[in-house]
């Protein structure tokens, strides 16, 4: 588990990137929100990499596109 990781930080990244003002639905995936297109998905992943100082490999980069998958993946990284 990453030292500086917290679920609330991850949710904040999603809300900032997707410009969501209210509650964020943790079951959401790509295209569920108006701003969540493929480019926004990449922006979210890049922002997560920067915030938690981790790297997604190419396979992860193309496959991760839902909050739950991303949460699971980030939690696994050490």
């Amino acid at each position, binding site marked *: 588990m990453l030292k500086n990781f917290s679920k609330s930080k991850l949710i904040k990244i999603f809300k900032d990137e997707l410009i969501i003002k209210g509650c964020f639905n943790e079951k959401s995936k790509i295209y569920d929100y108006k*701003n969540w297109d493929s*480019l926004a998905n990449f922006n979210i992943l890049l922002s997560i990499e920067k915030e938690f100082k981790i790297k997604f490999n*190419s396979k992860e980069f*193309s496959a991760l596109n839902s909050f739950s998958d991303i949460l699971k993946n980030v939690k696994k990284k050490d």
Partner: protein
Amino acid sequence: MRYFITSNTNLLNSNKIWKDNFLCKTTKLDDYNKIFISLNDKQILSKYENFIGIIYLNDYLKSNTRKFLSIIKKIICSNQNKNFFFLFYLHLSNNYQLDKKYKFQANMICNEILRLKYQNIFVNLRVSASNKYFSTRNKYYLRCPFSLEGLFNLSNEVKKIISSHTTKPFKLIILDCDNTLWGGTIGEDGIASIKYSEDGDGKVFEDIQRHLKYLKKQGFLISLSSKNNEKDVWRTFQNRKMKLTKKDFLLPKINWFEKYINIKKTLAELSLKEDDVLFIDDSKLEIDKVKKKIPKISTLISEDISKYLEKLQEHPRLQKLKILEEDKKKHYQYNLRNKYENLKTKLNNLDDIYYELRQKIKILDINRSNINRAEQLFNKTNQFNFTTNRYNKNQLINIKNKPFTTIKLLSLSDKFGEHGIIGSFIYIQQKNCIIVSDFLLSCRILSRKIEEYIIYLIQKKNKNKEVYLTHVKTDKNKELIKIFLENNSFQKVSKKTIDKDKFKGELYKVLLNKKLINVEKFF
């Protein structure tokens, strides 16, 4: 100024980097890989004056180099009045042979573009093998070859270009000597012991002087304001074989007066404004004292030497994206002005001075060789500028081609030498009169009857017509123009007297009296 940013790669337009950084109403970030479509789009070309092209060169170095170059050259050549800023990025592969070939081709592209010799092209090539700024994963999954950090640096680079392009460079740098041009104080340490050398701890001062010399070549004027014995200072420059020499400084003031007194004197001698000047000193006390008396002056503290060198290199107002031939002559031209000032102190009678000067004015049409200087004059001149209308190159060409409109540039020479292009005027022919919509002169040549002579020439050329000058008051022009209007014969008229509603500001009718006619004898 409007900027259009375009690229051959995906710049992740929606990424926060661009929003946080600077994108505003006047700056548009293009969609992915539309560079060649956008730069050929008439609508886009007519809307924006400045184009920033971010080009990932690796895409063109494998096979399409020549084709790419010919398209870019064609775009530049067919839009000569636009400003183009090309930021080329080359990601090296760490394969020796491949990188050698890539570097060669990248340099060839830059050189070919620069060889076009248009003043309005800026080219920068960034070459790196580091994966810190590039990301192969992003390149193939996003068509963005940059890492997030690389993209952040790139957006900063774009920001810097825009800020250097929009901020006005300083005209004059006034320097202290001790701990600013060399380490230590000559009064205490002695000339032989101060720090200045090609190596070791004096090396930083050699680099500082080298950079100042480079700034001087770009047209920045440099001067001194130092509390020292003058002879010791010049002996230091000479004995220690420094990069800067006595002749590099304009109106140096080395004495024991307060520095603000010296600086004020230099500003008056050069007709420069406080905010055109950067003052550099190692003492916070001296800087505070100067700032208190000359509040609009910019200052830089040289206490931490390495930071001071960095600031000197990076300062947005010490950057010139374009260096005109006129800029390179600035030091020489201001020296001519000083010779004139010296002549004035020798001869008391003003008429004698004007005769002695043997001034010659040339009236020039705007053409390709001088349009950059014309644009610079219209955008930089504040104090003796009747309307401070700002025109870019496109607008100047349009004015030139307008019927019943005359636009001319003025160049001056005198017994001391060539002053270059020093002013301009625009007038419009109406049925019964002439309306001078713009009239501006560089401050360094004022008060030698040139301003009166130009008005006289316009009136002489349009003999049977009344000539009216338009004046729009601003904080910067109100003093000089007021003096000029008061010293000469002008009659303020109501706008209703003629159909001139389309002209902004106040109107002054030229009265052709003996005083004005007499001016001719001095030229």
